[in-house]
């Protein structure tokens, strides 16, 4: 019944997964009912992506590949949303939308 979703994404933010991005990341993860986990290697260790304490303790620098997986309700949406947040550099570039608009 609980589908599993997974993805990987590279952190391009200048400092890495530091305080402000970690707050945004865990806040977003918490908006989904699914269990969401992240890891710095495909083999784990996997940590709770909703815990700021755990996410910060991972000390992921720029250039790290982040592995994400989620199971339960909204798992696929959670993974998609978190990948999008990392891809948008945690919206730290400028305010508002950071998508490339097509003509």
């Amino acid at each position: 019944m609980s589908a599993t979703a997974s993805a990987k994404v590279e952190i391009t933010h200048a400092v890495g997964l530091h305080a402000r991005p970690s707050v945004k990341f865990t806040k977003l993860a918490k908006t989904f009912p699914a269990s969401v986990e992240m890891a710095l290697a495909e083999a784990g260790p996997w940590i709770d992506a909703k815990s700021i304490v755990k996410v910060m303790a991972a000390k992921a620098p720029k250039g790290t590949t982040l592995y994400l997986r989620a199971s339960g309700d909204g798992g696929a949406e959670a993974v998609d949303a978190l990948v999008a947040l990392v891809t948008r550099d945690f919206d730290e570039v400028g305010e508002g939308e950071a998508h490339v608009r097509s003509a």
Partner: protein
Amino acid sequence: MSGAPDRVPHAKPALTFSGTAASPGYAEGPVRRLDTKASHYERKASPAEEAEALKAAIETSAERLAVLASRSAGEAADMLEFQMAMLADDSLFGPALDAVANGTAADEAWSAALRAEISGYETADDEYFRARAADLKDIRQQVLDVLGSAGSRDAPAGAILVGDDIAPTRFLATDWSHGGGIALTSGSSASHVAMLARSRGVPMVVGLGPLPADFDGVALLDAEHGRLLLGAEHEAAELFRTSADAFAAGRRKAEAHLHRPAVTADGTPVTMLVNVADPEDVDAIDIATCDGVGLMRTEFLFGKAGGLPDEETQYRAYRRVLEWAKGKPVTIRTVDAGGDKPVAGFTVEETNPFLGLRGIRLALARHDVFRIQIRALLRAAVHGNLKVMFPMIAVADEYQRAKAMFAEEAVRLTEIGIPFAMPPLGIMVEVPSVAVAPELFSDAAFFSIGSNDLTQYVMAAARDNASVAALNAVTNPAVLRLIAAVARFGRDNDIAVSLCGDAGGDPGAIPHLLKAGLRDLSVASAQLASAKAAVAAARV
């Protein structure tokens, strides 16, 4: 960095300690210890009551943080939000509550849970993460203060706060309006507190090493040179006060000018732009204090580990600065590698790099790299008032070829339906061939004089060689005559001319540049205030 006291045989022991200045300024005031007050916790009767006490203390701490956050903005608000998120995380208080259930006192359980997290940060390789240990210690102390019903954390007005390190919330809860400063035996200039201290102008020195534990008199904090003098009768006190007065006068004068438009003493307005080396620089600059960006360097993108930057990374960096500028002009210089700026995988080894394949020469030799930057610039141009300039132009053909590449990439973006805009394309005037014969470049949209390179090429004196430093002078009549000729040519032909070298921010050079006919100067943001002051004092 750190220091044993320089003991001077004297009636009163005069103690001087040396560290690193983390936020410049001077302060004189009573020493207030940050670490003497051990809060006393009274054990409760049962594990259940211990758990209640801990939960209540965490809740009270979170409420206090929320109050501080409601009064804060920017960096401080982000830091407080981070601390609130940490406090609300059961990964932090869970292990403490488990220990309490097994009979440990609430304060010990909380300290132990935090100790494990703190040591994880203290051993981090990365300075940024290492500095977060201070945030965790802050969180620990806030809860312990509530548990122990510790009194007010306020220090007397104008106090020098002395300790191993200072908690960010302690900094925010302190009233700095009557002066005061921070002297730390360890600490880091990368900490949240150091950033806050710089933005509020609170003097701060870190890395002072062990200080006498029994000292409780007046201290003199020199956070311009990174020193702490203990004792108001210190033999260097007079010199300290003279330096402090000079520093305060300089800051007041500069601050007064920073928020005014730059106008000479005889009423001629001057456009003052800033130089930007990294998109993160702009966070510390108020766009209202300048007329835009006269030079945004792009080498920062190319010097990083992980190879040459892709289009998306460049696009985001350019867009960030354009959006920050809120419609004011931003002049981005295409990659100026080579010379004293080698880039792995891009520049070539040369015996005489300043006269070799650098600037536009290298970009034109490496179409693969240059085209990526051109596309990123074309796309970013949609988001603000972008101008693009080419470095090290020596002959008109280089400008024509670079311009043609912009046109080609614009066609490609049109074909694949990606929005873009064509920015005005100008050139740096730094090779003497351009300064001598500017009429050969009259189809460039604008000129920007690179005074560093122009001076070193005209004088044949490298700017990084101390033995010929005296020759490398922008105020040499030959250099000034070239600058004046370019300015005159621009005026006569409606081509904007600005200057973006170090000379633009040099108060000694500014009157000469204005007399040479320049009315647009781009300077390092740290020199903006003093450059405006120099303009205000000049007559043209």
